[in-house]
């Protein structure tokens, strides 16, 4: 498993170096788990990405920032708004689930999304930023 995660992370890091500037990488790889964090700059925007892989699944949080302000957030950590969007009144029965969703600027609104990968985020970042 480590080889596969290692190869995936190497591909993500190479893409980050190609798409972003001032890139800083932190990564840890174990046989059954791994964590990757990437900081960088895309034009005037700061980019921060974190992804963890473990036997419990893949968790991610990707952000585009203007200064310290979040202008776009994509993550799959459950929160009350995402849970209510997905499950309505029954949301309390699903607190430990991973819920892919997107945050609007200043986290003023949430919408459910499909699963985002780091590669897709980096590949699509120009479009994502253009839509802001």
């Amino acid at each position, binding site marked *: 498993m480590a080889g596969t995660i290692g190869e995936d992370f190497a591909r993500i890091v190479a893409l980050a170096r190609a798409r972003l500037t001032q890139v800083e990488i932190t990564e840890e790889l174990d046989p059954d788990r791994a*964590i990757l964090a990437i900081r960088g700059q895309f034009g005037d925007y700061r980019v921060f990405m*974190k992804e963890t892989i473990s036997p419990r699944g893949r968790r991610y949080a990707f952000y585009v920032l203007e200064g310290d302000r979040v202008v776009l957030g994509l993550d799959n950590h459950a929160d009350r708004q995402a849970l209510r969007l997905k499950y309505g009144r029954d949301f309390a029965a699903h607190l430990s689930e991973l819920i892919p969703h997107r945050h609007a600027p200043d*986290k003023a609104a949430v919408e459910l999304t499909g699963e985002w990968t780091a590669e897709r985020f980096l590949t699509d970042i120009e479009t994502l930023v253009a839509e802001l």
Partner: protein
Amino acid sequence: MTATLRIPVQESLLEILKGLGSLETVTAAALRRYALDRCLQRIEQAERQIAFYERRYESDYNTFNRRICTDQAFLDLVNRDHPMWEADAIEWAYRIEEAQAWRERLERILRESWPSLAPG
């Protein structure tokens, strides 16, 4: 269950090891000691990270997660004060799982090497 390990060793080190007892016993003890030290080191590293997030959010992860998922006022407050809290939370959960995984490995070594020292 045992496996056989064949590795090149510096001759001077081998001479020292021979002076400490049977090579098989000394090498097995050294490997156990190394594995224990590394397990403890990884547990300590993970626990330092867990403590960092507990201080930052003044909570343990389970309480934090429950409130994030059920308490809109708390979620609004965390979004305001820590707008990238999700990145912290995924690492927080990861470090808790990591510490537990290394604890289980440590316990397995203890159980298999010194059954009387193993917890539970």
